């Protein structure tokens, strides 16, 4: 039901301009410029990376279901994309689902936060019982290191730390839909009590594994949002966020970062392509990616003021984000790279306006 709702929403936003694969990449959080850019342009950034283990077959199955129900139909020209139908829009309006995602924003943060939380709870509840031989639920050297450091400070005071953590979680979870709170708690592992696997959660709640995963992700994103907004009220949970940032640059691919540094030292696109032994098109991709994140991106270096206006007008006329459509409406000398930069800039500005 939740995956169905999200897919239908994606199809609605994409409006036949992208295929089902692009939704797959979006939900999986593929680290490609195209995917990140699509997330922005089509205002689907909240869903970016919310289900990193999703399988293409599951998405295809739900898509077929939507098709059979008449909520989407094949795009007239491009057989592999879909458009939402009237009944589809009605269905979406009738079914509101209570979930909360900030996918792109919490892309890295949510995993680390969750791993730290799971492992610290397991460690403290065990050490409180003097059990030091347990199999850690999380295997990640960085998280283990972090937990060790906290453990050193908390040792001997486990009970009071856990009570404070309990109080904070209780306050936050109380504001959640009951089912979501329950799923969050069911995943926790403590002394002699291992959390449920996704399959078990799905079975218990009579939902699909994908939905169980999505509800769980939603609960993490909600917690992050609450804690970030009020770190004073939630000192213990804030601890789990130490050293993690939402910093935009941290979301840019490493390769694009390198390009960015060279750009800042005054290299031209050609020079960067030459020194990095990459194609110019790749460097262009990097620049578009950077443009999506940097508020002070110097777009005029690449697109003149009046070219920008022309492209923006074309976008409005075309009522589409398809590059071909836009290109056919602007002067010959304007290239795809310039159009993509303007689209990126527009997406960034719109998001801030929201």
């Amino acid at each position: 039901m939740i995956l169905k709702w999200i897919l239908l929403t994606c199809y609605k936003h994409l409006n036949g301009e992208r295929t089902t694969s692009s939704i797959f990449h979006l939900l999986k959080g593929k680290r490609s410029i195209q995917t990140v850019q699509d997330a922005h342009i089509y205002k689907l950034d909240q869903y970016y990376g919310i289900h990193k283990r999703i399988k293409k077959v599951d998405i295809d199955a739900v898509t077929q279901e939507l098709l059979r129900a008449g909520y989407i139909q094949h795009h007239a020209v491009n057989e592999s994309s879909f458009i939402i139908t009237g009944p589809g829009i009605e269905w979406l309006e009738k079914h509101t689902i209570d979930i909360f995602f900030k996918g792109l924003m919490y892309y890295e943060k949510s995993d680390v936060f969750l791993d730290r939380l799971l492992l610290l709870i397991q460690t403290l509840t065990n050490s409180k019982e003097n059990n030091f031989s347990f199999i850690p639920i999380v295997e990640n050297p960085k998280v283990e290191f972090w937990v060790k450091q906290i453990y050193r400070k908390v040792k001997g005071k486990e009970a009071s730390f856990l009570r404070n953590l309990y109080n904070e979680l209780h306050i936050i979870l109380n504001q959640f839909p009951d089912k979501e709170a329950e799923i969050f708690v069911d995943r926790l592992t403590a002394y002699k009590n291992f959390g449920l696997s996704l399959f078990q959660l799905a079975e218990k709640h009579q939902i699909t594994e994908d939905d169980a995963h999505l509800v769980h992700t939603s609960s993490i994103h909600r917690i992050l949002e609450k804690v970030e907004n009020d770190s004073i009220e939630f000192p213990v949970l804030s601890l789990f966020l130490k050293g993690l940032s939402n910093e935009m640059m941290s979301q840019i691919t490493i390769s694009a970062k390198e390009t960015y540094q060279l750009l800042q030292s005054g290299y031209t696109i050609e020079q960067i392509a030459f020194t990095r032994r990459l194609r110019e098109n790749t460097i262009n991709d990097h620049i578009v990616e950077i443009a999506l994140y940097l508020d002070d991106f110097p777009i005029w270096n690449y697109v003149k003021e009046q070219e920008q206006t022309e492209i923006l007008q074309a976008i409005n006329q075309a009522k589409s984000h398809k590059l071909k459509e836009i290109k056919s409406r602007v002067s010959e000398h304007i290239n795809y790279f310039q159009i993509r930069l303007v689209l990126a800039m527009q997406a960034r500005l719109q998001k801030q306006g929201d």
Partner: protein
Amino acid sequence: MDKEIVLEKELEKHFQFTSFREGQKEIIQDVLNGKNVLGILPTGSGKSICYQLPSVLLEGLTIVISPLISLMIDQVKKLKAHNFKKVASLNSFMNPMERRRVINNMHQYNLLFVSPELLQQEHIMKLLQRLQISLFVIDEAHCISQWGHEFRPDYLRLSGIIEKLGNPTILALSATATPSVQDDIISSLKKPKMRKHVYPMDKPNISFCVDKLENEQEKIEKIVELLSTYRVPTLIYFSSRNTAENVAKLLSEKLKEVQVAFYHAGMEPSDRMIIQQQYMNDQLDVICCTSAFGMGIDKANTRLIIHYHVPLQLESFIQEIGRAGRDGKSSVSLLLFSRQDINMPSNMIKNELPGQSVLSIVYQYLHHLYNEGKDLPDEEVEIENILQINEIQWRFLRYQLEKHGIIKENKIIATPETWKDVFQSIFHIIKSRNKHKENKLAEMLKWIHDDNCLRQSLYKSFQPFSSQATYQCCSNCGFSWNEWVPEQTVTEVKRQSNWQIQLKRLLIGDTNETK
């Protein structure tokens, strides 16, 4: 005499056990004295202590070769959980960074688990050659023997590796090895003077039952009936992942009280770990699993082991039922057989090794590369994808092609004139291997249909005599379910739907105060 006292003290100091189990001390003494040893000890008897203790007592590094990466990772985790820090593993599943970390810290470890493929890599061998290797352990040593049930070609290269490492002391361990497999192990390792320590593998506390039924439906009915009578830790073994999943779902629908889960190698590692740990902590009653479950899991009170499909050989069967009743209390093995099952195992055997059509595809592919003057791709996965074969099939072929001098690492080194003969002989090897497995399967089926005592016929090819059953013997000697009254274990439903109570219970502990 002096030494014995010391050994016991060391055992207690490092592992908190007060005495050795049968066989452990004899093996450890020989190993410490630099003797090469072949140890055959039944599952659950504590084979790992036989190298873990020497690894702390001996100076230098103990290397353990283990066929299954998941097993290796489990072992390392368990040791680390018991504060055994100087241990690491090297396998092809680790990313380069993790591997480098282990390699850079190599001198700090006492105990290193390595997968046999990695020993083929020159830089790893170079590194190991510089270290002092005090003990070389081959776990699941039956994999060496081409007559063993889990034949792994990369195990055949071990004798060369051992030589390159300067002939350290060898300890080969297995839970199931017939006398002919034992001989094969010794001769492949080229150590004719190896000392054999062979201990009986029969389990007097397990009763054996074979139930011949008409179809799947009846199997399910039987299982439901048993599980509604007996609430005991139970493993149900399947040959197919799908069936394991489906039956698990069915059972949890039919038996609301009983906590059922499934387990197979196709699951995410983290999910596998969760299921294992829940079973260990008595949160689950029943696991529907494939042979992937059980290795390295030591739960003392598994009471009932059901085989839903026919295992391919007695060896696997013996290993799987060996997971029941490690505490010595009365436990039951039940094998469900229906005539419809007969085709499934033969098909599985046929698909394990490449068939003729695969061979000719490989031939053409190599020919194509040869003509273009190209090497094989670096990534094994890429080759497997191009040839559309699985990892095991490709590993087998790679070994054969290397052995026959057609390829060396990624290079094609022979001219095509010789290939025809080589492929012929590879095809013969496959045929004889399949034949061997068919025979093994026939043995298994013969056991199922045996009218004599099942216990005696099960063990007769492994040991000269088996001991009396402690409890009921077998379905041919008059087993009756009515007389089997194991202690019922109650898996408290630890997950209830009120999250407030649940959260409190997890973080603060059981408290009587109502909120």
